[in-house]
């Protein structure tokens, strides 16, 4: 069910029109959305990017300050565009284009069919799938994606590179895959955890393409070396551009050590606001270890379904990273429809979607009560972030259950449609 070009053009034109129309019809909306804590975190906020650009163009190092935490390569990119506070059109066009490119990459992933059938694993329900157009539309017209695009959060750029890396891995294009994954890691650091499952996916597709298994060790070594070289090059170029290595502390250091406790939808900010000083470093270590621990476990257990592992990891990033935003959840929710064949096996879809909806409607309201009305306190918004995280983690856990149940049907077809137990 590949997307034909006419259908695709219509879909993309509609998505672009909606975005540009919203930008044009509500000129104040982008700045309002950019100020929302749910959409803009200290590491992805467009306002902070503008501040960094201002300092950069006025020859002040943006990293010699506590406001700008974006990577340095964004500075020359965005300084090419006219000032967004006076002439926003070029910036709006850029963010619309980023969304369309992401949708294009998502369509390529859907077209490849790797979600349900890989070299080593054929889902018994692989006929059950949504069309590529529906999946792309689900991404492009998702209110979370739209809001993120309007807020011009730089997470959209990270999402684009993650989706491109997945698409390239599905196509077996090694070089472009490495470029995309290193760009994503360079932008947001945690996408590097997607490298192992996507490397497995790339291995499978290369294997299919070449009709002969390449040496697994050599394959891993070459690609890891490529990743290291590309990331190193990006960092080196950044250091030359920024004039020093100070940017490492201001970008990745901030993600690792969480000095900026601006509220967001994640679990870290309030925990570390309330944390006792002597335990702060210990819990920072534990929390990061926790995020990193999912990659090996999932990759080993579900090595036959690497695309599913990568999807689940994006879901985990949306919950457990230090500065998650709705944009991360939008990426996960864009990838979940690829696994339409698992939906019949999921048990708590209602609970999870109700929790996510509940949090998305009450979150802004409770934040308002805390910060503006003063009639609520920080616990109101904190409680909502807990519900949001719980909703997403139910979704992640439930889809994982469905994937494993689906796998069981291949291994033991006699258990199909029967009740199972975990021992």
């Amino acid at each position: 069910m590949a997307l034909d070009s006419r259908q695709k053009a219509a879909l993309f034109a509609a998505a672009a029109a909606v975005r540009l129309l919203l930008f044009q019809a509500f000129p104040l909306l982008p700045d309002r959305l950019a100020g929302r804590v749910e959409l803009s975190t200290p590491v992805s906020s467009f306002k902070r990017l503008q501040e960094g650009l201002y300092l950069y163009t006025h020859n002040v190092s943006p990293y010699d300050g506590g406001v700008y935490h974006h990577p340095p390569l964004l500075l020359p990119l965005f300084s090419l565009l006219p000032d967004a506070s006076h002439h926003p059109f070029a910036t709006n066009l850029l963010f619309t284009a980023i969304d369309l490119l992401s949708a294009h990459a998502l369509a390529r992933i859907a077209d490849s069919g790797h979600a349900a059938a890989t070299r080593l694993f054929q889902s018994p329900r692989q006929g059950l799938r949504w069309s590529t157009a529906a999946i792309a539309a689900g991404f492009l017209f998702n209110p979370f994606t739209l809001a993120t695009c309007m807020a011009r959060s730089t997470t959209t750029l990270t999402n684009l590179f993650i989706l491109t890396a997945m698409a390239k891995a599905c196509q077996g294009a090694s070089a472009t895959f490495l470029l995309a994954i290193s760009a994503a890691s360079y932008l947001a650091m945690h996408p590097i955890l997607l490298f192992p499952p996507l490397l497995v996916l790339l291995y499978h597709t290369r294997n299919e393409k070449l009709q002969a298994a390449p040496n697994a060790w050599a394959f891993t070594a070459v690609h890891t070396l490529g990743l290291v070289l590309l990331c190193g090059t990006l960092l080196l170029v950044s250091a030359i551009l920024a004039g020093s290595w100070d940017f490492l502390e201001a970008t990745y250091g901030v993600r690792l050590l969480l000095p900026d406790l601006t509220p967001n939808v994640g679990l870290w900010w309030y925990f570390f606001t309330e944390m006792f000083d002597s335990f702060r470093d210990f819990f920072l270590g534990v929390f990061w270890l926790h995020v990193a621990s999912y990659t090996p476990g999932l990759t080993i257990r579900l090595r036959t379904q690497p695309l599913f592992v990568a999807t689940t990891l994006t879901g985990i990033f949306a919950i457990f990273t230090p500065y998650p935003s709705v944009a991360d959840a939008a990426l996960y929710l864009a990838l979940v429809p690829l696994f339409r064949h698992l939906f019949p096996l999921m048990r708590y879809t209602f609970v999870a979607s109700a929790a996510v909806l509940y949090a998305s409607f009450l979150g802004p309201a409770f934040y308002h009560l805390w910060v503006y009305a003063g009639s609520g306190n920080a616990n109101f918004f904190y409680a909502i972030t807990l519900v949001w995280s719980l909703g997403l983690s139910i979704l992640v856990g439930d889809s994982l259950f469905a994937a494993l149940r689906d796998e069981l049907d291949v291994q033991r077809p006699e258990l199909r449609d029967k009740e199972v137990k975990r021992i």
Partner: protein
Amino acid sequence: MLSFLSLLLFHALIACALDPPAHASPDYHERLLLRPLPQDTLLATFNFRSNETAAAYEQQNFRLFPRSLGQILQHAHTKELHLRFSVGRWDADNWGQRPWYGAREGSNGVELWAWIEADSEAEAFARWLTLVNNLSGLFCASLNFIDATKTIRPVLSFEPEGDHADMSNLHLLHGILPHEVVCTENLTPFLKLLPCKGKAGISSLLDGHKLFDAAFQTMAIDVRPLCDTSGQECVVEMEQTVDMALDIARSKRPRDNPIPHPRPIEDIECDTSKSYNSPDTCYPLDKKTEPAWKLTHVFGKPLRGACPLTATEGPESETLCINTPPERTVQVNTTGQYTEWLSASDTLRCYKLPTGTELDLVLPEQHMTTGLVRGQPHLYAARSINGHGQERGSVQAVIKNPSPTDAVDFTYLESLPWFMKPYLHTLRAHVSTSSEDPLKETYYRPAIDRIRGTHLELRLVIPPASTLILNYDFEKAILRYTEYPPDANRGFDAPPAIIRILGPFQSADRKGLYLRTTPLLLSLPTPDFSMPYNVIILTSTVMALGFGNIFNLLVRRFVGADEVPAARGLKAIIQGQMQGVRARFGRAP
């Protein structure tokens, strides 16, 4: 209406009366200048100045210079020091030009800046920390809280007042404590630095109850080296200044019964033109008379004669001056010998105090036909926070140039705490009368979380008779719960902006022309301080649910429900356990 006599400007007067050339010998001068301000306010300007020759100062041979302060300055290699303790606001609209053109005024709270001799910035900062910690002990103030986050190195706003042979290794450091409450415990050490220690001379009038009750008060200490024109004969000069604007009616209240009582309505002159005027409703008319007051009432203490260290003859010996129109009656109550001196224009009367006996000035209530000319400020400045909520806001500074002819060139210095994060790309300076950009120069050092504060210095030009509006957005950070003070919901103080006028007006001496806005109160978002444990537990629970569920799925194996014995309730569990126990003891079930 009072017809205004054209009289000497108050400031030109104190400038020439109190700024003699540097003397190479140790000496001591003091002077109190009283000047009635509109709205029944009295401005009292105390000035104490002592000298020590540079050679004696280096050898720690202190005579008039206080040893405690001198040793601290030598230990911290401080060449020039300016320390201010201030409370209240100078009402420039009604009171006119500031005393000393703002040069002896400080930001609300405590302000300190010093030129420190050091070879490197790091060494200068280490000496600065030594200095603030020592001064903290000397003045019973929390000066030790001036750390790296509150220290800036201004570029345009301050110039040294003294003569320094080598400026290249002098480092200017500046710190403000806007939240510091200035009170009696700071006045006592201040008085102890004086040679007469508040026992005699004009300093005997300084009383904590009245000083800190004033609508505006500032205590200043300035230490600077001064050299004669040849640069050979140098002295270290220490100047202590107290300016206070007293509300006469308020300070006349007796100390044992300070609660004000309304005057009986019969005694109040009512505005009968008001529609609501009736026997029990009155809109009081402005009294056309100057209020009656005397020194012992407004200061709460008598003036205990002259300090014996002051000069005994010449204009330096006249230590008490009052600046009033000539028609104002001033009675001197004393049993001792005093002399009165009248200036040529009759607006200034100075008195040489008797030694050993008390002196009191008594001014009766009087209907005046003439008044004094008030100096007009060079600039008016007001600063406020716009916006609502605890997430973000914007700062707006409104600076007005009243002069119809002169464009004023000035610097604007902001030193903001790190948790107030300004967005410089939103900085707009806008002048009402012209479209030209008034912003000429910007110096900006952004804050780093928990390491240093923001330092923003601008040079602006404001055209004649126009208003400049300066605007920028900022974001408020949420702090760790241990970083909040006990009264977190009161808000955090942001220091005032400091404006220095560069031209075309010039001060007669090297002190410069300054203006300070009021501080800002910043309300930050606060976490719930009562529940660190709850937050740790609840967050950990959600993480454990996520992790536990996934971990469980990954490590366990699926089997059909009918392939394992179903555990049915408590009974089955107990039976299972019993079976296990029996098996262990080797008995078959």
